[in-house]
């Protein structure tokens, strides 16, 4: 184990995979000479040269498509989209081509492609630079979408994504790059399509991914200390395929769920998770599934407005307390009393 940042885990994994396999190469805007907008690729141009660390023109559709075409011939391109917002310029290539080529041609060509890209708001970047549109990709069969929340998963899921023969959208998050954690020194990829129970518990299931899985873990730890609550945290890790079994079996045990997401609530990832719980654990629920999600506005620049629009720890804690109050949970009695004025006037 080594303690390192999420950023370092990504950098080291890219480097290790390039050393391991000559067919792995990097493409993207400003990843070489500039060393990446978020410095994930720092030093790699110097080490591997222009052939394998390729600065592209500002042409998302063009270079995403070129990566797909190169992947069809068996290379393993890892594309950096500077932010997920810019990936919309490449939607046609990603959704109409990368996700379709294996099926549409009867399995004759696969697309072993990784698109790394950070989402996330909270940096006062305004409406067009703060979105979480991973849903667009998670909606589409043929895509795989993973969203690591910690440095260990950043490494293990990136290993898995690079070695996978399908197009993988690898979601990073601006707010996670500097977070630290233990990273195994081994070379073992994670399994795409599996969620992780990062904290076992019995009182309520708290579900999140990417930054919100990180927030979930912090809130669960904090409420265990302050209120003695035993919250189970499910980190989705994979948005497509979605590991419904893990979600549903957790809720069958805890009988209550709160779903966290950094995107808009309506039609969001949380809606799919909540519907899955309804399908698989309806008879086990003691309270409605609660979703904590972004306010439905284009994210403003103004700091107070931006802060109000994004889900906070306090929002998560309030949602947990209200859900447990609705359950009539033993451990939540004092909290239920606090909430009664709101819930049962």
């Amino acid at each position, binding site marked *: 184990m080594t303690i390192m940042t999420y950023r370092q885990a990504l950098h080291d994994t890219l480097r290790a995979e390039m050393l391991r396999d000559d067919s792995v190469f990097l493409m993207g805007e400003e990843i070489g000479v500039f060393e990446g907008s978020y410095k994930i690729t720092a030093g790699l141009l110097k080490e591997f040269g222009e052939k394998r660390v390729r600065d592209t023109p500002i042409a998302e559709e063009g270079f995403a*498509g070129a990566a797909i075409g*190169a992947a069809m011939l068996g290379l393993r391109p890892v594309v950096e989209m500077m932010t997920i917002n810019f990936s919309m310029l490449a939607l046609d290539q990603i959704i109409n*081509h990368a996700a379709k080529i294996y099926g549409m041609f009867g399995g004759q060509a696969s697309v072993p492609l990784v698109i790394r890209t950070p989402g996330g708001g909270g940096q006062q970047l305004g409406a067009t630079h703060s979105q979480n549109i991973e849903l667009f990709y998670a909606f589409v069969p043929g895509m795989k979408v993973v969203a690591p929340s910690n440095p260990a998963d950043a490494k293990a899921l990136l290993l898995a994504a690079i070695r996978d023969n399908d197009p993988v959208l690898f979601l990073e998050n601006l707010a996670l790059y500097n977070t630290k954690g233990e990273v195994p020194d081994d070379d073992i990829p994670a399994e795409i399509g599996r969620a992780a129970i990062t904290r076992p518990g019995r009182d309520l299931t708290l579900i999140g991914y990417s930054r919100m899985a990180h927030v979930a873990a912090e809130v669960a730890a904090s409420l265990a200390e302050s209120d003695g609550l035993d919250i189970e945290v499910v980190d989705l890790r994979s948005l497509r395929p979605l*590991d419904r079994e893990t979600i549903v079996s957790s809720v069958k045990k805890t009988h209550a769920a709160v779903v966290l997401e950094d995107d808009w609530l309506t039609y969001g990832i949380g809606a799919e998770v909540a519907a899955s719980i309804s399908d698989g654990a309806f008879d086990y629920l003691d309270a409605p599934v609660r979703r904590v999600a972004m306010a439905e506005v284009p994210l403003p620049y103004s700091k107070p407005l931006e802060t109000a629009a994004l889900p906070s720890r306090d929002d998560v804690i309030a949602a947990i307390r209200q859900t447990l109050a609705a359950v009539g949970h033993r451990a939540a009695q004092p909290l239920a009393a606090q909430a009664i004025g709101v819930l049962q006037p």
Partner: protein
Amino acid sequence: MASQPRQRRSAPQAPPAESGAAENAAAGDQDGQLRKFYRDMVLVRRFEERAARAYTEALVGGYCHLNLGEEAAVVGLMAALRPTDYLFTNYREHGYAIMRGIDANLVMAELYGRVDGVSKGWGGSMHMFDVTHRLLGGYGIVGGQLPLAAGAALAIDYRGGDEVVMCTLGDGTAAIGAFHESLNIAALWNLPIVFVIINNGLGMGTTVVKSSAEPELYKRGAAYRMESARVDGFDPIATRDAAAKAVEAARGGKPYLLEVVTERLRGHSVVDPAKYRSAEEVERLAHEDPIQLFGAKLTANGALDPDMIAAIEEEVAGIVAAAADFAASSPHPEVATLFDYTYATPVPNDSRRLPGEPLFEPLPLPGVNA
């Protein structure tokens, strides 16, 4: 409403070196080679006519775009490629598939949506694909194939191979962003690729002059410092020679833009009656047919005679009839294979649910004995 008949833009406007080279090469062609071109053009023509018939008989579904009028372009272009070169094309690609060497039976079976189709019935008319013959796709999204083709050329360059990618596109595609991005990338990185604009004068019903501010489309190559030329797509020999020159440049790491001027003799797709065409244009097209023109030229040269033409028609009719029979007798894919091609690397929790099925088995009702 366009009232002026469109003039087919052809060889006289092409750079002079082009037509001269074509004539010299044509003079060097043996009669057998010329007859082969003629026969291949007839094969594409009759195949497409048979496909149109099958469409009207509801044996072919979806959209169905034909190469009618583009036979000389198809045959000439494909003759310039080595078997190891790659082709990316659009949704008007039946003729290209056959001229890449794919069995007409398998092309027709794909139109019928059967398991023996080149794409196993998953692609249909617009999405033919064959790794063996290096047809890396018909693509249904206008412009979608251009970035992919540039990427294939990048992979060749990355590995130090000597193959070339040819990427064909329609005249309307020259207006889309992917065209600009792909040509720019190909030129920046010296990729081994030839972009070929098949200019049949019409998008669906929109003329080139109404969709492109520079209607001489090959001139767009200048924006990327890419060598480019225009050739008469009614002349298979000139087309082959122009394509051979382009392919040779690309093999040397110089991407190339070739514009092939041709005609679309029918509507955009089988179901389009092309009512936007003026009576004058319809009349002109009735007398302008690349197969008749090339046949007449070969007959005048003595390379072809009526008996030979009859023999070619008979041979081709046999191939096309056999293809239709083969397609009709090929089975539909089994529904059990529906989930076979979502992912190349199997993944847990991949959904295999049919529309009416629940996500989870319903629980037994409480208090009810099984």
